[in-house]
C-alpha cells in the first residue's frame, strides 16, 4: 500500500526535465489564451444582461403606471327630468339618449361636490372643472343607466375616470410647468385636482379596466384598455392551436415514420425549413390575397389572423415535432415491431407518447411566436380601431377584433403621450403572456423528461 503511493525518490519522473511547478512558455501562453477567452465571454454575457435589464427597465418604468389609474369619486344624481322625461323608463327611449344628455348630470354633480367639500375653485373656469373628469365618464353613466333603468331618480356613487392629463399629473407625466404650455390642461386644474385629492374625492387605484375595456379614441387615453386585443389574441391562438397542432403532428409523423426517404421528401423537408425562415410580412400578403380577397373572409377577423399565423407556426411545430420523434431511440420502434405491432401501432403506442413533451414544447414556443407577431396582422386589417367585443366563439372568430402586438403598435402611433404609457403597459401584458407560455414549455420539458 505505502509502497504504491510513495514517490520513487531520486529517479526523474517523466522524460521532460524540470519541476511540475514551473510552467513552460507554451503553458503560459495557453493559460493566457484561456484567460482572454474567458474575459471576452464574460463581457459578452454582461453586455447581454445589461441590454436586457435596460430594455425591461425602460418598459417597466414606462408601463407599470398603466396598471394604476386616477378616478374621481362622485355622487351623481340621475335626474329623471333630464334622462326620462316621459317617466315610463321605456328602454327604447333611454336608448335614444346619447352621452350628450348625461354631461349636464356630471357638471351638476361636480358643482355639488365642490360646494359640499368647500373646495376653492380659485381661478379655474367651470370648463376647467368639468374637464377634470374624462369624456368617457358620460358613457359610463349611460351604460349604467341602460343596465339599471330603475336607478333613475336616485343618487349613485360612481368611480369615474379622471381625464388623461390629471391622471398623468399623479404619474409624473404632467407637471405645473408643462401644464402652462399645454392646451389640454391648466395649472389651476392641477391645483383643483390636488384639493379634490385632499378631500378624498380623487383616488388612484388598480386599473382593472386596462385589461377589460376596449380601445378608446385619441382624446381619451385614460379609457383605453386591452380587452378586445386580449380576446382577439386568445381567439387567434385558439385558431392557431386547433389548426396547426393536428396538421403539424400528422405531417411530421408521416414524414418521419412513414414516408420513404427519397428526393421528393428531401425537397419537402428543405422547403419546410425554408418556410420557417420566410419573413412574416410575406405571410400577411398571402393571407390578404388568399383569405380576404379570394376566399372573401372578413377583414380584421381573428379567423383570418389565426389562419395566417397558422401558416407561420406550422413549420416551427413540424420541425420541433420531427426533432422529438427523431429523439425517440430506434430500439423502441424495433421492440414494438418485434412483438408484431404494425408500424402505425408502434408509432402511436410507443413513439408518439415519448415525443409528446417535445411536441408540446414546440407547440407552445410556436404559439408564443405567433402571439407576438405583428406585421402580417397589419396587412389583414387587424390594426383597425375596434371598440366592440367580438361575440363568443365560433361566431366571434369572424367579428372584427384587435390583437395585443397590433394594439401596442397602434397606441405608439397616437399623439397623446398618455398612450406611450398604455403601449408600454400592453407590452408588459404581452411579455407576461410570453413568459408564462415559455415557462410552461420548460416545466413540461422538465416534467416529462425521461431516460430510456
Amino acid at each position, binding site marked *: 500500500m505505502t509502497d504504491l503511493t510513495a514517490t520513487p525518490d531520486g529517479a526523474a519522473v517523466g522524460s521532460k526535465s524540470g519541476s511540475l511547478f514551473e510552467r513552460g512558455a507554451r503553458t503560459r501562453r495557453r493559460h493566457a489564451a484561456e484567460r482572454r477567452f474567458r474575459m471576452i465571454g464574460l463581457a459578452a454575457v454582461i453586455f447581454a444582461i445589461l441590454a436586457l435589464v435596460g430594455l425591461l427597465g425602460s418598459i417597466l418604468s414606462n408601463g407599470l403606471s398603466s396598471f394604476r389609474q386616477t378616478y374621481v369619486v362622485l355622487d351623481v344624481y340621475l335626474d329623471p327630468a333630464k334622462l326620462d322625461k316621459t317617466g315610463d323608463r321605456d328602454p327604447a327611449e333611454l336608448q335614444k339618449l346619447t352621452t350628450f344628455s348625461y354631461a349636464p348630470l356630471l357638471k351638476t354633480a361636480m358643482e355639488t361636490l365642490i360646494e359640499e367639500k368647500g373646495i376653492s375653485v380659485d381661478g379655474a373656469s367651470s370648463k376647467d372643472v368639468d374637464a377634470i373628469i374624462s369624456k368617457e365618464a358620460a358613457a359610463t353613466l349611460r351604460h349604467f343607466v341602460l343596465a339599471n333603468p330603475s336607478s333613475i331618480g336616485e343618487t349613485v356613487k360612481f368611480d369615474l375616470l379622471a381625464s388623461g392629463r390629471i391622471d398623468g399629473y399623479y404619474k409624473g407625466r404632467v407637471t405645473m410647468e408643462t401644464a402652462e404650455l399645454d392646451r389640454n390642461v391648466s395649472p389651476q386644474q392641477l391645483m383643483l385636482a390636488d384639493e379634490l385629492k385632499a378631500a378624498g374625492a380623487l383616488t388612484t387605484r388598480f386599473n382593472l379596466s386596462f385589461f377589460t375595456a376596449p380601445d378608446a379614441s385619441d382624446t381619451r387615453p385614460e379609457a383605453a384598455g386591452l380587452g378586445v386585443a386580449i380576446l382577439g389574441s386568445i381567439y387567434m391562438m385558439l385558431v392557431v392551436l386547433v389548426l396547426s397542432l393536428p396538421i403539424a403532428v400528422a405531417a411530421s409523423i408521416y414524414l418521419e415514420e412513414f414516408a*420513404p*426517404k427519397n428526393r421528393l421528401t428531401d425537397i419537402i423537408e428543405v422547403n419546410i425549413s425554408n418556410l420557417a425562415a420566410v419573413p412574416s410580412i410575406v405571410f400577411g400578403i398571402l393571407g390578404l390575397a388568399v383569405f380576404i380577397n379570394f376566399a372573401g373572409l372578413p377583414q380584421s377577423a381573428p379567423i383570418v389572423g389565426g389562419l395566417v399565423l397558422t401558416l407561420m407556426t406550422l413549420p416551427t411545430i413540424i420541425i420541433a415535432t420531427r426533432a422529438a420523434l427523431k429523439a425517440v*431511440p430506434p*430500439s*423502441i*420502434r*424495433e*421492440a*414494438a*415491431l*418485434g*412483438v*408484431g*405491432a*404494425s408500424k402505425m*401501432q408502434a408509432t402511436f*403506442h*410507443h413513439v408518439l407518447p*415519448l415525443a409528446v413533451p417535445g411536441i408540446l414544447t414546440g407547440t407552445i414556443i410556436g404559439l408564443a411566436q405567433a402571439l407576438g407577431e405583428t406585421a402580417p396582422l397589419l396587412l389583414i386589417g387587424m390594426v383597425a380601431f375596434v371598440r366592440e367585443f367580438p361575440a363568443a366563439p365560433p361566431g366571434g372568430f369572424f367579428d372584427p377584433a384587435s390583437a395585443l402586438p397590433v394594439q401596442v403598435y397602434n397606441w405608439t402611433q397616437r399623439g397623446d403621450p398618455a398612450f406611450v404609457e398604455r403601449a408600454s403597459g400592453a407590452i408588459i401584458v404581452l411579455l407576461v403572456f410570453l413568459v408564462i407560455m415559455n415557462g410552461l414549455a420548460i416545466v413540461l420539458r422538465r416534467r416529462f423528461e*425521461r*431516460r*430510456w
Partner: protein
Amino acid sequence: MNMLTEAAVERKLDTMDEQPAIKMRGENVTVHYGDTQALFDVNLDVPEKQVIALIGPSGCGKSTFLRCLNRMNDTIDICRVGGKITLDDENIYDPRIDVVELRARVGMVFQKPNPFPKSIFENVAYGPRIHGLASAKSDLDGIVETSLQKAGLWNEVKDRLHAPGTGLSGGQQQRLCIARAIAVSPEVILMDEPCSALDPIATAKIEELIDELRENYTIVIVTHSMQQAARVSQRTAMFHLGNLVEEGPTDKMFTNPEEKRTQDYITGRFG
C-alpha cells in the same frame, strides 16, 4: 438377430437425431443494402425446437440473416432481400403475407435490452393485447405471469409489476424482453447477441433460460462467444463475408469442422 430390424431401428434413430423437422428454411438468400451486397446465396435450415447458433466475424452478415427471418429488414429502406425464406413451408416474403402475423410467430430479442419505458406488466402485456390473445383482464394477468415465469423473472418482479421496466438491471431487462417475446406465443425466437451487454452471471442465467426454452421454441441465436455457442446450441452456422461457410451439429463444428476458415475462427486465429 434380424438385420432388417436393426437397419430399420438405425434409420429411425437417424431421423430422430439428425433430421429434426425443418421450421424455417432459407434458400439462396441474398441481401443488398443499397448497392452493397451483404449476403450471398445463403442456404440454411433452422431445425424445429432446437437452438441454432450463428457465428462469424463482425460484419459477416449474421444479424442481417437473422433479421431476414422475421422481415425486420423491411424497416430499412435501402435493404432488398432476394431468394426465398419459408416458415413451415410458406414463403414469408410472399406479398400476401402480413408481417404482423409473421412477427407474432417469429419473435425477436435484441442485442441491447430495449424494454418499453412503461411498467413491467405493460411491457409483457403489450404483445398479447395488440394480437387480441387475451379477452379478459384475468387472461392477460395469466399470460403475463406465465411469460415472466418462463423467462425466469417472475420471482424477482412479482411484487413490483407496475414499476417501470427500465428500472430493472440489464440482465433483468433482457429477461423482460424475452418474456415480452414469449408472451405472444411465438414459434421461433430470434436472439441477436442477447448477452453482449450483460455480466457473466446474468449471461449464465440467460443461457440456462435458452436451454429451457428449447423445449417449446425454435431458437436462432447470434453470438460472438464460442463458449456460448458451444453451451447452448445444437447446431452452429458459420458466416464469413456474407457467405455461409459451414453448418452442422455444434459438437462436430467445434471438434472437427470441415472448413479451415471455421477452424481458424473458432480457435481465434481471426475474427
